[in-house]
């Protein structure tokens, strides 16, 4: 009987080898995926057990912090943002036991939690000294008064506002409306969190979506004419005084339809208009014809240089704006005035103005001023970074003058500030019938601006969805320009 006993012991050894193998699979090979499974509450519980670092605005105002809590979880996340947590909700994001994290809470999650590789040596010393490790604090570049002004100006209209510092790319304000209360989702009562989340998710206005960088992309409408104008000036064949055809309607080749002006009238005497005037009054037919006559790819290249198609992390993930490829002639004409299938984020529009304001150099947008360890030593302080030159200095100067005319005597007069030269451009983007009820929706109202024109401190982009309170009567100049003006005033008056 000894032979079968020996065989049996071999079988037993094999069975155990199988167990060791599967244990290795679960705890080592597959462990990463298992840890990342959203149903694995341990990862979050472990982080919640730690003192997560705070998120502060540029002035030190606390936007998110962990406070000691009663019960099994040591800390609770609170959002004391002013005037309300909702003003800052899309910036901070939320940090939930049930649904994970969004916004900066997510993008800089490992630094806030103290588990990032950058903090490795500090953790090592915590291990040796037996100190409870705590997360790094994150200071943002956003200015409370600018953020509050933007939120107040937008009110409860759906839309977004982004303000940048042109010379550095620092984000001064980022507002998305409607918003929500992140504190509700950070509650330790999971049932409460589930209900709140379900309610926000079912809301047709998508309050959880950060429209400034990550919503459904918007058609830019006439603010895109800045890109077309830049492309034209960059060819060297055009100056602001170049004369363009500006009829009441531009017949589109290959089709039976034509592209009309909003006013229904010609843009100038003799159906002609200068490039500068075309921008000032937002002449569709002049820019449509530019789209037809500019060399193939000129507008696409200019758009790419201004950041279209780039996947940025600011550190929030930004949905890349798109300029369509392989256009036929009528599509090029439509794209040149920002219709057709051109799609943008409000941040992208602000970047266009910022590049023009910064003598043609595009800076990488950045929301983080510095990351500090608990002992106040600086872990990371992002330096301003150039994304590249989007246009020559001459082009930028010419465009600046043209945009000043828009505000002085064009479609953007509502953005005027006494004593300050504001450069701007309006847009009213047709959106078609998006809800499928047979009639087109009200257009989106856009405005982008920078000021002061000769020493730009802020570049801003505003979008108000479906015309906001003004509905079908809305236009970029009437609806969005006053919001942009209030944001600029908040920066300049600071």
């Amino acid at each position, binding site marked *: *009987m*000894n*032979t*079968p*006993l*020996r065989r*049996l*012991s071999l079988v*037993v*050894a094999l*069975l*155990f080898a*199988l*167990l*060791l193998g*599967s*244990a*290795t699979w*679960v*705890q*080592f090979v*597959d*462990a*990463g*995926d*298992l*840890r990342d*499974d959203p*149903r*694995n*509450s*341990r*990862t979050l*519980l*472990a982080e919640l057990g730690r003192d997560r670092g705070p998120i502060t605005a540029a002035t030190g105002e606390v936007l998110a912090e962990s406070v000691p809590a009663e019960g099994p979880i040591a800390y609770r996340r609170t959002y004391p943002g002013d005037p309300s947590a909702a003003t800052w909700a899309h910036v901070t994001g939320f940090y939930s036991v049930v649904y994970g994290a969004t916004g900066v809470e997510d993008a800089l999650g490992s630094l806030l939690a103290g588990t990032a590789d950058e903090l490795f040596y500090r953790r090592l010393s915590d291990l040796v000294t037996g100190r409870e490790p705590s997360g790094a604090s994150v200071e943002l570049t956003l200015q409370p008064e600018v953020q509050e002004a933007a939120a107040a100006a937008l009110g409860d209209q759906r839309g977004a506002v982004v303000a940048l510092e042109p010379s550095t790319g620092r984000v001064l304000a980022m507002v998305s409306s409607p918003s929500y209360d992140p504190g509700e989702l950070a509650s330790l009562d999971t049932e409460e969190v589930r209900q709140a989340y379900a309610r926000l998710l079912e809301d047709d206005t998508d309050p959880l979506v950060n429209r400034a960088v990550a919503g459904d992309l918007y058609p830019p409408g006439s603010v895109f004419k800045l890109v077309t104008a830049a492309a034209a000036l960059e060819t060297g064949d055009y100056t602001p005084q170049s004369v363009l055809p500006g009829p009441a309607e531009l017949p589109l080749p290959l089709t039976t339809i034509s592209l009309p002006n909003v006013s229904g009238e010609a843009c100038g005497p003799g159906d002609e208009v200068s490039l500068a005037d075309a921008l000032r009054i937002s002449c569709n037919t002049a820019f449509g014809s530019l789209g037809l006559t500019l060399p193939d790819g000129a507008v696409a290249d200019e758009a790419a240089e201004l950041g279209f198609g780039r996947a940025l992390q600011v550190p929030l993930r930004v949905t890349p704006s798109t300029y369509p490829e392989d256009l036929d002639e009528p599509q090029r004409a439509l794209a040149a005035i920002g219709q057709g299938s051109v799609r943008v984020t409000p941040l992208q529009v602000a970047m266009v103005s910022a590049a023009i304001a910064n003598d043609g150099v595009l800076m990488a947008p950045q929301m983080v001023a510095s990351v500090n360890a608990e002992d106040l030593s600086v872990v990371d302080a992002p330096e301003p970074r150039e994304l590249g030159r989007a246009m020559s200095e001459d082009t930028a100067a010419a465009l600046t003058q043209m945009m000043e005319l828009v505000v002085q005597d064009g479609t953007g007069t509502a953005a005027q500030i006494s004593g300050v030269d504001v450069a701007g451009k309006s847009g009213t983007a047709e959106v078609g019938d998006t809800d499928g009820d047979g009639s087109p929706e009200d257009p989106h109202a856009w405005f982008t601006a920078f000021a002061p024109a000769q020493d730009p401190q802020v570049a801003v982009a505003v979008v108000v969805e479906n015309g906001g309170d003004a509905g079908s009567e809305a236009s970029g100049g009437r609806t969005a320009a006053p919001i942009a003006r209030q944001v600029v005033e908040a920066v300049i008056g600071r």
Partner: protein
Amino acid sequence: MAVVTQHAARSRRGTELLLLVLAVGVAVLAYGMVGLGVDGEWSAGLPQYGGGLAALALVVHGVLRWRAPYADPVLLPVAVALNGLGLAVIHRLDLAEGSAQAPRQLLWSAIGVVAATAVVVALRDHRLLRRYTFVAMAASLVLLLLPLLPVLGRTINGARIWIGVGPLSFQPGEIAKITLAVFFAGYLVTARDTLSLAGRRVLGLRLPRGRDLGPILVAWAGSVGVLVLQRDLGTSLLFFGLFVAVLYLATERVSWIAIGLVLFAGGAYVAYQLFGHVQQRVSGWLDPFDPEVYDRAAGGSYQLVQGLFGLANGGLTGTGLGRGRPDIVPFANSDFVLASLGEELGLAGLFAVLALYLVLVERGLRTAIGVRDGFGKLLAGGLAFTVALQCFVVAGGVLRVIPLTGLTMPFLAAGGSSLLTNWIIIGLLLRISDAARRPAPTPAPAPPGPATSETQIVRTV
């Protein structure tokens, strides 16, 4: 011609004592560190716990010196280490859940150790058990049927395998593991010749005669009965596996294993078709991450998946005792004690514990090889294999090698019946290993006569 070297037989009791010190030391340290991890202070009751465990170990050790000096020196320390680690993990979950299972478990450890000691003291020769072959069979039947009685039986978590008197509950099926092992060994050591020699050869396998199939069919029917009547997958699988293994040991015939596997596969298939809870276990095993399976209110894969999450969070070195969240997993101190251990002690700790089990089983099988009588071989081999199979079924369930069943890890998991049974198994293995390692008595000078002639009939075993 083989050269036989005679070693002086050594009792190795000193080695055992040293290993016991190590085992108790590791377990006590683990128990104390649970408190450090949770509260930052050494666990309360550490002296009582450490003293209790050490006393239990020393009692068995002393009895072995007295009554079984040649018993295997590794079995006892491994059992003490596993029992002690189990107590530490149970204490850790007590702290998390506010329960008080650890003192109960310590009490049952003491009862188990007393039982093992009683086995070693009262049973002077394991061969005596062979006389009770059919008593053991009858006892097995009674033990298995007890939970089905109307007043005594209790259904807990869907399985009717408990009996209860007042606040006490017990799983008689655990003890049946031992009585069945005795019965199988006693029956098969007698029947092995007919079962192994008669029959036709088909495709290289010697198939048994039809009438010899009787016993395996009875065993199969019995384990299916357990499955149907008590809804207990694990025990059913365990009994059948035990029977097939002992049958193979007795007959050395691979065909029995083949027949056993076919019968098992058939039974499993029919059970899958007939019983919802079997289907749930299988789907929970195949697609545990499917939201539908995961969220199923009863019989879903929530427990398994949470166990896997715990193990994954433990990683290579674990979170440290008291630093994980094993309490998230349902039944973390019994069915899923391995997940708790793997979370806080990591892959390294899990490997160490599995290695302890492997050592325990292989020492049991080594005992079976060393002992001289067929009954002892079958009994030791059967008992050791039961422990191995139970480990595989439980750990395999937790680690998603096979579908989850309702068994618990020997020694580690909270549960009195299981602890008592496994200590009795250790007692039996110690007793048999003493017989296996005891030096053969110096043969008395042979009396002159026919005994010295060349015509002795020698039967090797």
